[in-house]
């Protein structure tokens, strides 16, 4: 083969990545994903990919993960508009894609800017998962957890946890947790046990990291409540509230840190004597 005709390639081939680098520099390395979903119905996509539904589901799932990650990391508005339809299409194409229900529910339910802040849609996704995979007790468990943790529907959560306990192979503690929810009305200790379970069940990755962050938030809330108690103690002893939290330390009432797990100092309202997680902290979540 004569090589001379191919010589221009030696110049042209390196030019391609060079021009691409220039474009990236001009536009920015990350170009926001196109906020368009051409097909909004999983049934439509199903009809268009006969015999290849599972592959299509994988592609939609990959796009969901990329969309969520891209939106969370790079988007300023963090609207997550396409999240619900993407997960819905993926799970319609492959109703057995359990991971999509579990992760999708977390992505949807966590408040902004961590997630989409749409817990109702997260719960609906888990309900769809429970219908598709009636023997997957972990999906029922997550549904019960999410009903309590994100929607505050404690009674329904307890009923779902009892249903989960009926599934063969389900964890033994589900029934006890359901009973606790009914008797205690859903305490922070219940929430801690739920997040602890999710942390232990998850493999390394975004779900485990999210459960870990939630446990840290609960630790920070406990510390803030503890400090609020010390403020009350200070008031009882001195007849006034401390002007700043450091006064508790000087009074010998507090020896620990005055910051949450993330290292952000706690907020303090002298009017009410309440200590709380600062809005500046990554531990802060809306009530």
């Amino acid at each position: 083969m004569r090589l001379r005709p191919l010589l221009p390639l030696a110049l042209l081939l390196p030019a391609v990545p060079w021009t691409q680098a220039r474009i990236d520099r001009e536009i920015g390395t990350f170009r926001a994903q196109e906020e368009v979903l051409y097909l909004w119905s999983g049934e439509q996509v199903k009809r268009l990919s006969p015999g290849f539904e599972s592959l299509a589901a994988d592609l939609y799932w990959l796009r969901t993960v990329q969309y969520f990650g891209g939106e969370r990391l790079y988007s300023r508005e963090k609207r997550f508009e396409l999240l619900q339809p993407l997960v819905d299409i993926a799970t319609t194409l492959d109703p057995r894609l359990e991971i999509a229900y579990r992760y999708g529910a977390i992505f949807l339910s966590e408040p902004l800017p961590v997630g989409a802040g749409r817990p109702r849609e997260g719960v609906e996704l888990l309900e769809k998962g429970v219908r598709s995979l009636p023997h997957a007790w972990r999906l029922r468990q997550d549904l019960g957890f999410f009903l309590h943790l994100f929607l505050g529907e404690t009674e329904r959560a307890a009923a779902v946890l009892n249903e989960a306990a009926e599934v063969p192979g389900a964890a033994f503690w589900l029934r006890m947790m359901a009973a606790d929810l009914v008797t205690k009305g859903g305490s922070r200790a219940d929430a801690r046990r739920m997040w602890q379970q999710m942390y232990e069940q998850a493999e390394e990755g975004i779900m485990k990291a999210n459960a870990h962050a939630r446990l840290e938030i609960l630790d920070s809330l406990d510390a803030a409540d503890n400090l609020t108690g010390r403020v009350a103690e200070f008031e009882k002893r001195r007849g006034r509230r401390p002007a700043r939290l450091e006064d508790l330390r000087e009074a010998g009432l507090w020896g620990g840190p005055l910051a949450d797990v993330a290292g952000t100092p706690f907020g303090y309202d002298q009017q009410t004597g309440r200590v709380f997680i600062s809005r500046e902290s990554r531990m802060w979540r809306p009530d």
Partner: protein
Amino acid sequence: MSRLLAVAANTFRETVRERVLYNLVFFAILMTLSGLLLGQLSIRQDAKIIKDVGLAAMEFFGTLIAVFLGVGLVSKEIERRSLYPLLAKPLSRDELFLGKFAGLAFTLLVNLAVMTAGLYLTLVFIGRPADPLLLAAVYPIYLGLVLVVAIAMLFSTISSSSALAAVFTVGVVVAGRFSDVIRNMREVAPGVPPWAIDFIYALLPNFRNFDFKDRVAYGDAVPPDVLLWVTAYGAVYVAAVLVIGLASFRSREFQ
């Protein structure tokens, strides 16, 4: 029989010479990239997605190869003027037709075997077990591909243009993938008489019968009796198509 095998061997050599198996290089690249990237992108779904991609690629590329090799039987041979010397040899048209079919079926078998090995290698590469259950999806895919070849060869004997034969074959394959839609046509088109729907449903090859990809990707076994019935369906359908194809090939006049 020996003449039939000689045609089959020659057909296999010819398809290899036509670089048909180059798709294996593409498959290898696809599998390697899937193995390297999907673990990061899919959140622990890498093994399932690699199985989906591998099996879908086998079916998709296999179908393309089956169509384009199958339609070349008569029309391409005419275009290249290589059919006439063949017909002049002491070789019956039946032997030529069936030998070509056997050769193409063997090409597809080799193709599929190498792709299956590639899929297993990728799974082992990412630290997942080489699940023997996958073969329960690969085998029906092969049956489906053999049926596609038979259909393509049939259209090749009817049509003088390989492009037209390819269009007809793809049309039948796509329609066969929508068998469930045809069966449920009554719901969307109540005016169509039920016997017509039943007739179309029975006539078209139901390619969904050969699809067990989803099941095995989730580790579900395929019952042996189901595989047996699928084999019987494939064998009967292929035999029927070949009989029509043979009749058409015998009666066709080449000038």
